[in-house]
């Protein structure tokens, strides 16, 4: 990830110039190569399917919400609902049009974007808490819709959907390695798009609207257009994440997988990871997927199974809540900022000027 830093240049006469730090980029390529080649070789199937795949999908969902909340400044509690739209729309394309999975996935995302566009329309008139009502209306209505209208889950008695087949242009992806590569590729491509998007004019418009909408309007930015675009693109990401969550991670899922608690989970990912940071989504998602595991290990070693699962879940809940409050107080920019602070401190260590 490149980020722009303001540095004092002591050698030239210009006092301040904006320098692009590109040093991180080759690390990124290395990481990607590692994810493609090394990880499947060293990680066992459990790790890939139960930890890495959900982590990647949650990161993608985090990017979706971060575009809306972190960049465009519109709070939403409807992420779960939009994920459900993506999942059920992809299912419909797979089932009725017999499309290959990547195409169905893309179209599912487009449908989610349309629904997001629709529920984003009120953002032209209202903001803040009031806008949250719109997103909650979307969440509850969509949950109800995908439960009450049996057409969406093809009249199955369990009200769940599962992919008829998982293939990309003839390549079978239904084994665990195939699912992993599918998720990794989709997440890598969409992350690359998101990184460029938030640095483009569109992304800068979003940030201007977030920071002060009146000033943005004065500067000639079409605020409503920007906000609604953010809703649509955010929903596209969430929809794709929802479809992957259903077909590549869970295998079969009902609308219960996309309830309000999912929306909260995604929101927590971006608060912990960092509002307005793409890398923060990955950090937050890693944190939220690894913390339960870590707590489990600690409980096992310290109390040797005397702590029951229900209590552990409640402890985990309390810790998440406390962390949210702690981050909001101490580091509103999340772990992404914490890590970049450490990095810049390390880069001048031990000779601070």
């Amino acid at each position, binding site marked *: 990830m490149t980020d722009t830093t303001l540095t004092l240049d002591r050698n030239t006469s210009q006092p301040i110039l904006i320098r692009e730090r590109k040093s991180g980029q080759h690390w990124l390529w290395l990481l990607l190569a590692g994810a493609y080649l090394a990880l499947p070789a060293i990680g066992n199937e459990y790790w890939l399917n139960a930890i890495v795949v959900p982590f990647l999908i949650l990161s993608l969902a985090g990017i979706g919400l971060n575009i809306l909340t972190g960049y465009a400044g519109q709070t939403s509690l409807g992420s779960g609902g939009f994920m459900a739209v993506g999942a059920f729309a992809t299912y419909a394309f797979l089932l009725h049009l017999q499309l290959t999975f990547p195409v169905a996935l893309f179209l599912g995302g487009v449908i989610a974007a349309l629904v997001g566009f629709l529920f984003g329309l009120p953002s032209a*008139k209202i903001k*803040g808490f009031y806008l949250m*009502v719109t997103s909650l209306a979307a969440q509850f209505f969509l949950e109800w819709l995908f439960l009450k209208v049996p057409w969406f889950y093809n009249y199955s008695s369990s009200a769940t959907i599962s992919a008829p087949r998982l293939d990309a242009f003839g390549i079978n992806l239904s084994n665990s390695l195939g699912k992993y590569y599918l998720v990794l590729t989709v997440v890598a491509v969409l992350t690359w798009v998101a990184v460029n998007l938030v640095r483009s004019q569109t992304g800068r418009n979003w940030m201007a609207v977030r920071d002060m909408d009146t000033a943005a309007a004065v500067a000639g930015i079409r605020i409503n257009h920007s906000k609604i675009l953010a809703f649509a693109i955010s929903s596209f990401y969430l929809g794709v994440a929802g479809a992957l969550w259903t077909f590549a991670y869970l295998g079969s899922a009902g609308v219960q997988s996309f309830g309000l608690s999912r929306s909260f989970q995604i*929101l927590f990912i971006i608060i912990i990871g960092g509002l307005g940071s793409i890398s923060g989504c990955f950090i937050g998602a890693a944190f939220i997927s690894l913390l339960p595991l870590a707590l489990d290990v600690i409980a096992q070693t310290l109390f040797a199974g005397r702590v029951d699962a*229900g209590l552990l879940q409640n402890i985990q809940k309390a810790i998440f809540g406390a962390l949210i409050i702690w981050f*909001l107080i101490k580091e509103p920019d999340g772990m992404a900022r914490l890590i970049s602070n450490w990095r810049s401190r390390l880069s001048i260590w031990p000779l601070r000027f």
Partner: protein
Amino acid sequence: MTLFLETLIGGLLAGTMYSLVAIGFVLIYKASGVFNFAQGSILLFSALLFVTLLEAGIPFALALIPTIAAIAIMAVLIEWWVLRPLTNRSAMTLFMATLGLSYVVEGVAQGAMGANVHALDIGIPDLPIFVGDLLISQFDLVAAITAIVLVAILALIFDRTRIGISLRAVADDTRAALSVGINLNRIWQIVWTVAGITGLVAGLLWGARQGVQFSLSLVVLKALPVLIIGGFTSIFGAIIGGLIVGASENLAEAYIGPYIGGGITSWFAYFLALLFLFIRPTGIFGERTIQRV
């Protein structure tokens, strides 16, 4: 016609429960500008604590004292650890902090007192009675009367006591209140305690109906549309909003529900609130806020 009236009255009475929860929101919002998402989990916590004490054999009136004390302690801790460090931050940040707070309170409440459903008997028979030829739930009637009494007590406190007057001063103009020497932090603690107690009342009534359990905390989700309709800053608005939501929800479920599959109460209130937002964004009794550049 009888069916219509019964549905309407049933809805109105259920709406008083929403009102009770919404009043807690309004109190906190007026005094500290926080939209307190944790109201639902505080309600769950206090009801759960009360029921646990009852089950331990402590009589009803005596169990109230430690419960209210616990609410007060919680209010002070919240003020210390959450509100004070977040002073002057954006309303959205504060809201997200209360979201985290709700997780903490729920986790602690359920971790310490279990996640089982507790039956709660507060001595009100849940039998329907006939008023004329209308069938009305006696329990709902008692709940409604409790709500009215509670609001009357609150109104008296706000009107007559020193604390109440300083509360109103803070709500009116925080800076002016500070400059005349009102201790803002103390006011916050008191307001959160009072809101917690209204939550306790709502939690006990609601818990007597359907058992004290986790789903109690979800009542917070109904309070949001109630506040949008009634206005964020008016207690009277919260009551009217609760009644409107309760009645229309019940009517919609009875008359529209059968045609589109039922179960529409989960989202109906939100669509009603959206409708209100476009017609009257400040709610029926909300103060008109003017945004200037």
